[in-house]
């Protein structure tokens, strides 16, 4: 799943060209329905509703704190990737997972959840 402020068309082009579009079940764009850009709560609530899961059963992975803030405030879990130039923002809801790249976050998520999933 992806959730982006971009239109579905652009995010589709992006992910296709990046060669990773196949791993995602579904792409969400605020452009589709809610027409409110992240971190508006409606964007996250809408995704949870579409996925038919409780908010806490969704984890946003993002590298922008304004995004993790929005997700956490909407009841999601969140992981923050500290891309170049990104640092933690030490007020407000804090991300559940923090790592320097997606590998680091994946390690944390796998360590935490994989044993139970077997």
């Amino acid at each position, binding site marked *: 799943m992806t959730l982006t402020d971009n*239109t579905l068309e652009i995010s589709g082009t992006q992910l296709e060209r*990046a*060669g990773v579009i196949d791993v995602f079940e579904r792409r*969400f764009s605020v452009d589709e329905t809610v027409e*409110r850009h992240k971190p508006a709560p409606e964007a996250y609530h809408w995704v949870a509703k579409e996925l038919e899961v409780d908010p806490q059963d969704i984890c946003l992975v993002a590298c922008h704190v304004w995004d993790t803030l929005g997700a956490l405030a909407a009841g999601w*879990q969140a992981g923050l990737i500290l891309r170049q130039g990104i640092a*933690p923002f030490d007020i407000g809801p804090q991300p559940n997972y923090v790592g320097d790249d997606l590998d680091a976050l994946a390690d944390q*998520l796998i360590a935490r959840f994989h044993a139970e999933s077997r």
Partner: protein
Amino acid sequence: MPAPQGPPGALGDQARRPQHDGEDQGHQQLGGQAHGQQPPLQQRSRRRPDRDPLQGLLDQIDPNLDQGQATGQASQRPLPGSAVSEQAGPELSDQRAGHRCQAAHHRDRDRRRPVGVPGRGQQHQPRPGLGYGHRIGKGVPDHSTAPATGPRSAGADRRPDTTPWLQPYAAGNPEGSFPTRYFPTLARPSEPGLVGELVAADHAASHIEELTVARTSNTSRQTDPSRGGQRSFAVEACRYVHFRGSRGSRWTLAMSMELRSSVSIGVEAFRFATNEGRSMSSQPIIVFDVNETLLDLEAIRPTFDRIFDDPAAMRLWFAGLITYSEALTLAEVYVPFTEIGGAVLRMLAATRGIAISDADGAELTERFASMPPHPEVPGALRRLRDHGFRL
């Protein structure tokens, strides 16, 4: 809402004062005993008795805890500094258990959020930035916009069980570790077998000097001398609560904080129930942001370097893009993201006397649509998928 009887500035005073945004509150006098108040825990006991499975546990805590143990003596005591790591809390546990963390405020019966009001004579004084600690108990996402004394929205009461506020370190640091790299002064490594801890820090540090913790647990660690009782954690400041709980164990942690400045951030009660409600232990569905999270934003840099001849321009533009997408959203005006990006580009150029051509805009759009993934992304995504995560 009946107001507790108590002297102005005492903790129980809060209930009859308007509540504002947390940044504007969270200050009050804690020094001294609050005479004549109803024990706040009893107040809470009257609240929602039929809806609160932890109430019995809360009621086991010495009601004095609500006074935070924040007496004058406490405020004069020097800081032991590393006391946190030496203290044991509630029974430890399988950190993967589904923690449900809730924050409840004692005196704010229906509002699970931190409360604090100015103490006597402090109502109109400028307040120091207290940092984060006074919001520890925040459990309601719409906290900051909640009407001061009006009824809470139904949503607010529905949501405490899903508050993420206190979950990060329970959920995200299964080894009990703290992200010391980000908060190096806060490092409080967990002892093996430590059953719970307060990890404390504040960027407005050295204000808070006492925390009082009480717990009840039906699986208390035998060696913990504070079992069933209460104890003080002397810390410099408090920002986070970190704990681990076991499946089936229940414990309660209440906390008070006093500021050296004799301005208090009030008392927070945190209620934790592991294995309550829905479990957090199942794999979450992972939803990814795209730009910069997965794709390398640096790919658009050449366009900015060419147009602006300023290495800062690209980040300025992206920051402006976010700012104006948020501004438009707040103003309830929807404009597609790409159009905002174009407008911000033109705005940024105009401030520098640069004209943006259609070709410039097209180039940016093309580059934006062609950003490569960060190198680890394809492999990490597939690894997550192969481990059963829904992506």
